[in-house]
């Protein structure tokens, strides 16, 4: 059923972050949301799982309006959604295996052995097999990010939200994470929203693009459409030419 964001408004004090943002991630596709730092991309993603409540507007996930759900219904919905945090947000008091198992313990009826097997499988998928007994402090930045992905995909969610999954990683790890995002979409039919600044990665994984600018959707379309887009703000962003964006604003 996909994820539909309709006319989302959100302010923090006097600062307006989202000013009527609307976009849709259709069933089974990967939508990449582009936007500058502080443009509200992470804020948008947090509305999708109910970590933030909109001032007005709504987010519909799997046919349910997130902000109207009772707490228990929200937890039910979250069982279908995996969230990859920008800085991984691993639980530092636990080992990597325990981190990955957290969602499985809560979101599934699997027994201990099945959970251990699934944890191994997920760690293998992100090339971290053999790292299960390490704590997050013993991992590099890239390894932490991959561990965050392993934790998010462990429960085989229907929806995956990636908050800058490749930022700050080396090119090989970036390519590996891109392949993983593609695989989740192609093989498992997962609906994904990726927010990123990394244009190479964005073009590799996107089925469609949306650009968030001044709290609103500035562009929505396919990779071919964004390449052909004449809007100076969009062009300035994807080509890394701030002079185009400045001229417009």
């Amino acid at each position: 059923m996909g994820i539909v964001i309709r006319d989302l408004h959100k302010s923090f004090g006097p600062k307006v972050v989202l000013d009527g943002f609307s976009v849709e991630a259709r069933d089974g596709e990967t939508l990449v949301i582009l936007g500058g730092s502080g443009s509200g991309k992470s804020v948008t993603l947090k509305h999708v799982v109910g970590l933030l409540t909109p001032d007005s507007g709504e987010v519909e996930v799997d046919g349910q309006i997130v902000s109207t759900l009772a707490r228990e219904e929200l937890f039910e919905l979250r069982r279908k959604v995996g969230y990859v945090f920008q800085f991984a947000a691993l639980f530092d008091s636990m080992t990597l295996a325990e981190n990955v198992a957290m969602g499985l313990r809560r979101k599934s009826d699997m027994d201990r052995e099945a959970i251990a097997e699934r944890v191994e499988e997920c760690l293998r998928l992100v090339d971290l097999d053999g790292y299960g007994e390490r704590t997050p402090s013993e991992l590099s930045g890239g390894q932490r990010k991959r561990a965050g992905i392993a934790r998010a995909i462990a429960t085989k969610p229907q929806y995956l939200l990636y908050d800058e999954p490749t930022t700050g990683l080396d090119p090989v790890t970036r390519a590996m994470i891109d392949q993983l995002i593609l695989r989740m979409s192609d093989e498992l039919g997962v609906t994904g929203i990726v927010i990123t600044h990394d244009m190479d990665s964005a073009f590799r994984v996107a089925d469609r693009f949306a650009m968030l600018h001044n709290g609103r959707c500035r562009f929505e379309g396919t990779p071919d459409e964004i390449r052909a887009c004449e809007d100076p703000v969009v062009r300035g962003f994807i080509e890394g030419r701030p002079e185009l964006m400045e001229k417009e604003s």
Partner: protein
Amino acid sequence: MQLLLKPFALLGRGGMTLAAGVGQWGRLTAETVQAARHVDVWLRLLIPQMARVGVDSVPIALFIALFTGIVLALQASYTFTGAIPLYFVGVLVGKTMMLELGPVLTGLALSGRVGANIAAEIGTMRVTEQIDALETLAYPPIAYLVVPRVLAGIIMVPVVTALAIGVGIVAGWITAIQLLDMSSADFVNGLTLFFLPFDVTFAMIKATSFGFIITSIGCFFGFNTQGGAEGVGHSTTRAVVVSSMAILVLDAFWALVLL
């Protein structure tokens, strides 16, 4: 004129901040009671938290109680010499350790050790999005983080306090017979002279309330941490200061209500 009004404005702002803080803490407390129904989430975390809050705090609590018992005995003897029979040293050590110093000093020590630890841990989890991660993994954060810590405080602070009272009294007893030329029988006689079973109840009621205050305030400031490392530092300091003040206010409250 504005200069004259400034203190009142400051006072008013301070009062409003205090009222808002108490309200938010009350709300967290109510949510904690509600979240206690998620037994499957907090039950397996309770024993480790009891170990951290209680067992790990025993050395510092007993260290304080040991020296408090010694000093109480020496000061009582110094005060009573020539005026009051020395067996009253036992009365003073027993009553003071049980009714006041055992619970209050243990509470203050634990507000530094346990309250600060809780605020720093939960605060760090807040600023590194670990609490958000708990939510996305369908764990109610209050059931996962607050309920086991508050329950551990309510259960273990009275246990640690009881041990501290015991050690303080024994330390006073040994001091009395070794340094004050008192017999063991004199000390025990004094100890039992005005003893009431209610004294124990009073000490445990105080300790239980202190356990709740220390852990709930630590959780409150941890949950409301903003910013990075600096924010965690602020939360930790405020948790210790506020819980220490709350312990002293509660101490007076219980004395007023129960004695």
